[in-house]
């Protein structure tokens, strides 16, 4: 009795080939039936740059630093996101808001520097959960390729939500 690694092994058919198998042509026809059948099969490949698969609704991608409806940055540089980050990808530097910056920052303290290293980040979303000010969110995009490691360290200007026209007019009206 030969030693079997598993019970799933099928015994090999060692009978000599019969006539139909030996003339080989029916085998070719059978093979052609399989391969030609694939002409009508759906191809799983997506033409990537033109067609993109939708992400799941819970996908966690690149971070964004949120603004309020008047266009002011919400972040108050409390450091809870950095503290909660298991990969230690977030660093920041706080600064005090000047009286003439009321229209730029929502809180009295704001993040003068804010960096996320996308090579360290594991996109767990804990920063998003830790934030008491609704300031950081994970979006549905992912970090594009880059040539250097430095390119993956996203600065504040890469992260903060771009101003809409509406926000700009509101900011200007507050300033005056």
């Amino acid at each position, binding site marked *: 009795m030969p030693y079997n690694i598993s019970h799933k092994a099928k015994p090999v058919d060692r009978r000599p080939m019969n006539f139909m198998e030996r003339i080989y*042509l029916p085998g*070719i026809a059978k*093979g*052609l039936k*399989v*391969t*030609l059948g*694939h*002409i009508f*099969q*759906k*191809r*799983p*490949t997506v*033409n990537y740059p033109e067609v993109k698969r939708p992400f799941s609704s819970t996908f966690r991608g690149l971070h964004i630093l949120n603004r309020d409806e008047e266009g002011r940055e919400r972040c108050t540089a409390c450091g809870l996101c950095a503290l909660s980050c298991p990969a230690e990808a977030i660093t920041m530097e706080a600064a005090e808001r000047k009286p003439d910056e009321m229209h730029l920052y929502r809180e009295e303290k704001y993040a003068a520097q804010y960096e996320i290293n996308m090579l360290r980040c594991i996109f767990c979303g804990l920063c998003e959960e830790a934030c008491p000010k609704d300031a950081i969110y994970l979006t549905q995009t992912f970090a594009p390729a880059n040539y250097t490691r430095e390119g993956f360290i996203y600065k504040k200007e890469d992260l903060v939500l771009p101003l809409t026209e509406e926000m700009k007019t509101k900011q200007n009206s507050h300033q005056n």
Partner: protein
Amino acid sequence: MILLALTLSLVLEKVILISVILGASLGIAMYSTWAERKVAAIMQDRRGPNRAGPFGLFQPLADGVKLFLKEEIIPTVSSKFLFVLGPSLAMLMACMTSAVIPWGPDIPKADGGVISLQVADINIGVLFIFGVVSLGVYGIMIGGWASNNKFSLLSGLRAASQAISYELAMGISLIAMVMMTGSLSLREIVEQQHGFWQDGWFTWNFFKQPLAFIIFIVCAFAELNRAPFDLAECESELIGGYHTEYSSMKLGFYLFAEYINMFISSVILSSLFFGGYNYPFMDIVAANVSPLLVSIIGVLVLLGKAIGFILFFMFIRWTIPRFRYDQLMNLGWKSLIPLALINMLVTGAVILYFFSPK
């Protein structure tokens, strides 16, 4: 006795015909590479080339440009003359076979003569094809030898012995057919397959000699060095085989020669066994349209059949695994040659007993 009356119009006709045929076979070979990749992709549920142009149709052009611009490497230990001769010979022989193929019915001229759509109507057309095809393997042999690489040499040896083994069966299978047609001229053979149905039986040779067709097409696969008989270039054993050391357009010539050969043998297969430019109800068509159109339809029918065979070659390549070398030799010597001999004997006996003039 005038053997060949050379007139300016004749020379002009032939030059135009040759350039058209060469251009067409190069173009079809070019797009065969594209079609091969597409066929492979479709059979494996992939998409294939689709970046260059619509459906990737400019891919062969991009490949051609790439091959031309690549660095040309000639190994220092190779014999340089033979190294260059190899791919040139392969390409030359691939292009030469098209000379005796009748591409379509004659086009009548205004002055009563005809323009023949065949470069040379020699009365030994079939023999000519065999001769040129067997010369084609010299390209591979010389290339494999001149590379001074053991894999190339092994591949050259394999290609040569394979070609010799299968040429025998191929020739014998055709003898049976030639006994029926009574002519070696391709024009004659094609004309005998006129229409599709006559006197209660098909006119096409495939229905008269099915066994010869099967033997012939198996041998054609072997002669073309295509899967499942591509032992001369099997990557898993011999790296690239005879073109291991080749680069740039010399490699391109080898690859291209294979595709031209495939096109030409598809045309030969359709001419010998599937009626060439003949098609069912062709007499009704001929009675109703102009003679020029008849010729054009004939050419298109022949090309359609050839493209069908090319696709068949490709389907087979992406379906069947490669033969082992001893299996290849067993199939050639122990199966195909006896089968071809029996076929020849039976055909001869039938002709002698039933069709010989009393």
